[in-house]
Every structure is written in C-alpha cells, then in structure tokens.
C-alpha cells in the first residue's frame, strides 16, 4: 500500500492521472490517518523508503513508525506459510501480531491494510484455521506473549467502502 501512496505523489508531480491502485491506496491512507492512533510500516518498507527520493519518502516516514520484530515473529511467519502464504506475505502478516513499537512498548496492530485483494481473501478464508494455529503457538510461549492477537487484513477498497 505504501508503494502506491508514494507512486500517487510521483504521478501528481508529473501532473499525470493516477492508477486505480494508487487512488485507492492514497485515499485509504488519508482516511486511516484521521482515525488510527498510529500508522506502522515494516522495517523493510522503512529501509526502502529511506533509500528513495526524500521529497516523496520523507513525509511518509514522518507519518509512520517502523515496527521491530519481536521474538517468535519468524516462527509464526513460517507457520503461516503452511497456509499457502508466500514468505513475503507471511512476514507482513506476522508483523501484525509480533511487530513491536519500541517507543510505545506495544505489540501487534489492529489491521493490516493492503491493495492485494487475493491476500485479504485468502486470510479471511483460512482465518479459523490460522486462529487455531496461532492460539496453539501462543499458549506455549512465555506469559508476556499471551496478549498477542491476530490482526484484521483489510483491502484499501474495503477501507474506502467505510468512508
């Protein structure tokens, strides 16, 4: 989603019309910014933005906080791949439960927003099994991890439907 928000700004600088995904992402981002306490990105996205053109990337970095990986994030990501998620998607989903905001000392997010409809549908379809597997894993972790939850996965189109 962040990529499309960035690209929307590139298109505006060129005075070119945006693509569907760019419009969806930019409008969703603007809406979420008004209702969410905080916007988070993964470390990978933060690193990519830091290497991109500052004039486009810096405001997005300023709007968001990069989550760190809490222990067991990758273990959960590996288990998610058993549900036919790619490793790239699995790690993003795992950030949703094990992503750590070191500043506020909070872990996990309420919702992951994506332009990837197939990812959101697949997550929704297998949610019951995923939840079962997640609960099985959490119960065997130290007590501090008992507070962890699964995030929702929402598409940008779904966010716009709420507006």
């Amino acid at each position, binding site marked *: 989603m962040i990529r499309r928000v960035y690209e929307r700004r590139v298109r505006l600088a060129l005075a070119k019309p945006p693509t569907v995904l760019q419009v969806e992402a930019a409008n969703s981002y603007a809406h979420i910014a008004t209702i969410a306490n905080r916007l988070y990105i993964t470390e990978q996205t933060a690193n990519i933005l830091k290497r991109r053109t500052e004039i486009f990337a810096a405001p997005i970095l300023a709007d968001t906080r990069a989550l760190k990986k809490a222990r067991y994030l990758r273990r959960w990501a590996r288990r998610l791949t058993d549900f036919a998620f790619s490793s790239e998607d699995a*790690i993003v989903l795992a950030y949703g439960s094990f992503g750590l905001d070191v500043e506020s*000392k909070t872990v996990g997010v309420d919702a992951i927003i994506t332009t990837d409809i197939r990812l959101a549908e697949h997550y929704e379809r297998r949610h019951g099994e995923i939840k079962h597997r997640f609960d099985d894993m959490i119960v065997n972790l130290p007590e501090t991890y008992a507070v962890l939850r699964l995030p929702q996965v929402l598409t940008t189109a779904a966010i716009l439907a709420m507006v």
Partner: protein
Amino acid sequence: MEKLTVDAEGKIVIPPEVIQKRGLHPGDELTLIESAEGLLVYQGGVDAKTSAWWNRLDDRQRLLAEEYALRDENLSEHERDASWNQEAESIEIEAESDELDLSNQLASCSTKA
C-alpha cells in the same frame, strides 16, 4: 464507494447523492482510467494527505519533485518492482538473531517509567 451498473448502451448512472456530494454538473468531464487493475472513474482532485504534501512544497521543490518523478517514471516495471522488493526479510531460523524479546522490552519500559 458505489457500485455502478452498465446498461445495454454502455452507459452508467452516477447516484444523485454522489453527484450532489461531488458538486458535479451537466457537461463536467470525468476521466475513465483503464489499467490492468481495473477501471476507475476519476474526477481529478487529490486526497487530503497527498494534497497537504504537495501544498507544502515551494516552486523549487515542485520542480525538483517533477525531475525525480520523471526519473522514477522512466524505470521499467521490472526495475520499479525490484526497487520495492529490496532487502526481503528472511523467515528462516538463522535470521532470528535480530528479534527482540518482549519480556525485556516490557522490563525496560518499567525501568524508564
């Protein structure tokens, strides 16, 4: 978001409440953007965040943004994809050394408080 239905002549009707909300008048032009992702009926205009970013830029920064944007647009789709997929994070056990223990994080929080 509204659902539109195409009639036999290929026309779509925009619901009156949307016409009113967007301040549309007969003769106003809308752009139909067709791409691999789908179709978008686009009125122009910019969302609040993008607009706020653009409005903060002075003329020199806008020229600079256009210059950088041109470079970005000149990349092939493959090059652009590659630049957004750098440093893919591994999910393997060997990569777990950078993970932070939640118990320690919460303990450091208590210490700071």
